[in-house]
């Protein structure tokens, strides 16, 4: 009696069309290519550069300027900065994806149920999101991270905590309109349960704007992560991580400026690439801007 096809297949077709439009805009294409490149480096980094390079302390070689041997110079432990940066990208990018992914998962589920079921649940969830919106995100993440204590997982968790309410709000708004549609009544008439309707039909039909927002958020999330890491949350000193590298380089800013310049530039490039991609995707998906 149930339908075999869910609404997910339509979403996949739409995403393919988006991809097609995406490669037509040069700026967006560049951003997307860099973003893909960053993901590739994050994935294969430890295979092309042995992770031991980050633990390879050679104090006599410390603070050497960039040369043909050490492309970006060496840091205060005598490690090759280029290798350490490549190894760092994995940690920062995976943290970024984890944060947005988890925020999206929580936000979408809560938003869908909140909007579809309505009533008390909706009221309570929306007041909770209000609380989150009344505190600047970075400050709230700072406070949560401080309460949880130092450590990579705690930092990721702290940023997830401030990330989900935005997605919940957007999705809930979409669902409020979607649940009045005729097909929902039809599905109900067929005797299909609420849970199934939400997961198989409501979410795929409303998730679009949330996905766009999530893409736009990627670039900002890596900044928040690196920023809090710079302040000393997150990983310990020798672990390769971009924000942490800047903290370490700060001491030698006048003596060895490359220690600050290159890790920061890496963050900027990653963030810019994802922002360009997200900006392009939003333009493409916004029907008013679609040419």
């Amino acid at each position, binding site marked *: 009696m149930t339908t075999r096809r869910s609404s997910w297949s339509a979403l996949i077709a739409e995403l393919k069309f988006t991809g097609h439009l995406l490669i037509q805009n040069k700026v967006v294409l560049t951003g997307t290519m860099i973003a893909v490149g960053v993901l590739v480096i994050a994935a294969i980094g430890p295979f092309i550069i042995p992770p031991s390079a980050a633990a390879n302390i050679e104090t006599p070689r410390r603070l050497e300027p960039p040369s043909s041997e050490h492309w970006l110079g060496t840091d205060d432990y005598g490690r090759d900065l280029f290798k350490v940066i490549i190894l760092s990208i994995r940690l920062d990018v995976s943290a970024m994806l984890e944060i947005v992914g988890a925020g999206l998962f929580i936000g979408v589920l809560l938003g869908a149920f909140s909007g579809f079921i309505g009533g008390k649940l909706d009221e309570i969830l929306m007041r909770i999101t209000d609380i989150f919106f009344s505190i600047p995100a970075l400050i709230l993440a700072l406070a949560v991270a401080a309460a949880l204590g130092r450590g990579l997982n705690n930092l990721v968790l702290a940023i997830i905590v401030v990330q989900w309410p935005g997605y919940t709000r957007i999705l809930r708004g979409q669902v409020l309109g979607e649940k009045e549609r005729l097909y929902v009544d039809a599905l109900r008439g067929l005797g299909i349960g609420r849970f199934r309707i939400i997961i198989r039909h409501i979410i795929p039909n409303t998730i679009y704007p949330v996905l766009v927002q999530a893409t736009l958020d990627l670039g900002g999330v890596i900044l928040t992560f690196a920023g809090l890491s710079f302040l000393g949350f997150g990983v310990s000193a020798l672990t390769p991580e971009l924000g942490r590298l*800047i903290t370490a380089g700060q001491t030698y800013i006048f003596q060895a400026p490359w220690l*600050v310049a290159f890790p920061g530039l890496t*963050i900027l490039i990653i963030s810019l690439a994802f922002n360009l991609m997200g900006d392009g995707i939003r333009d493409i998906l916004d029907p008013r801007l679609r040419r």
Partner: protein
Amino acid sequence: MLLDPVTLYLTERTREEAIPALIAYYHLNDPWPIRYGVYVWNLLKGDWGYSRSLSQPVFVGLAGRFPATLELTIAATLWALVVGIPFGIISALRNNKLPDHVSRMVALTGVSTPVFWLGLLLQLLFFYYFHLLGLPNLPSNGRQDTTMALVHPVTQITGLLVLDSLITGNFIVTEDALAHLVLPSFALGFISLGVIMRIMRSSMLEVLRQDYIILARSKGLTERVVIYRHALKNALIPTVTVTGLAIAALLGGAPLTETVFGWPGMGRLAVEGIGRNDAPLIMGFTLIAALILVLINLAVDIIYAYLDPRIKY
């Protein structure tokens, strides 16, 4: 917290017998709803808790640092608005031409730049390299020169150093304070500049398509009058909202910028408080940030009514 909270209230001279009394005084053994209730009740009475790391009440500590953060935020917002609005208008008028592409790149770079890194690079260039080249360099640390503070003390009136020194006629200090403001406010304002520029552009484009603009043009008004007298006021409405949000973002950026520039504001205080596990101080800072955000949103709504007479409350 990973550590036993009572250890924060102990010194080597605390007597063993005093510990239960301390636990009872700070409600450390009570369940969290009770502790929260006590915190909120105390807040209502004006007691924000006691900061161990500052050895003074949280409210006094934060109030002392508030003007520095306010001064920095005002300077950052001002320059982002002064540069962002005209450039937003220009890129709307030259839609899809070079200025528009430039403003788009600046905007995207602005939201993609780690503010703490930008701060460090600015220090490197304008403080260190300018010094090496024998050029007049900009100070990179703190709110004013330490010897200046001793030689020309400024009476506190508003707490804003630039304003206070102007009022008291202490112009040497004004100059010094302004010089100290340049780099941190540039770094901080750069985040919001792009956002303001883009929203100004898109709302200007939106307004220029309206019928009344066509009417104004067909009446034979000059382009200048059409843009600045007819279009600008309506185009500013979305910009006001975004500026409100941007100030909130600047507030969020304060812990990072203030740490990098050694700026004696609330953000740096909070970061230091975290290093010393000073929970009341961190809670106080978060609370004050939330209060400011709510007040900014209120202010935005009030400015709306002024800009758009159709909106009545």
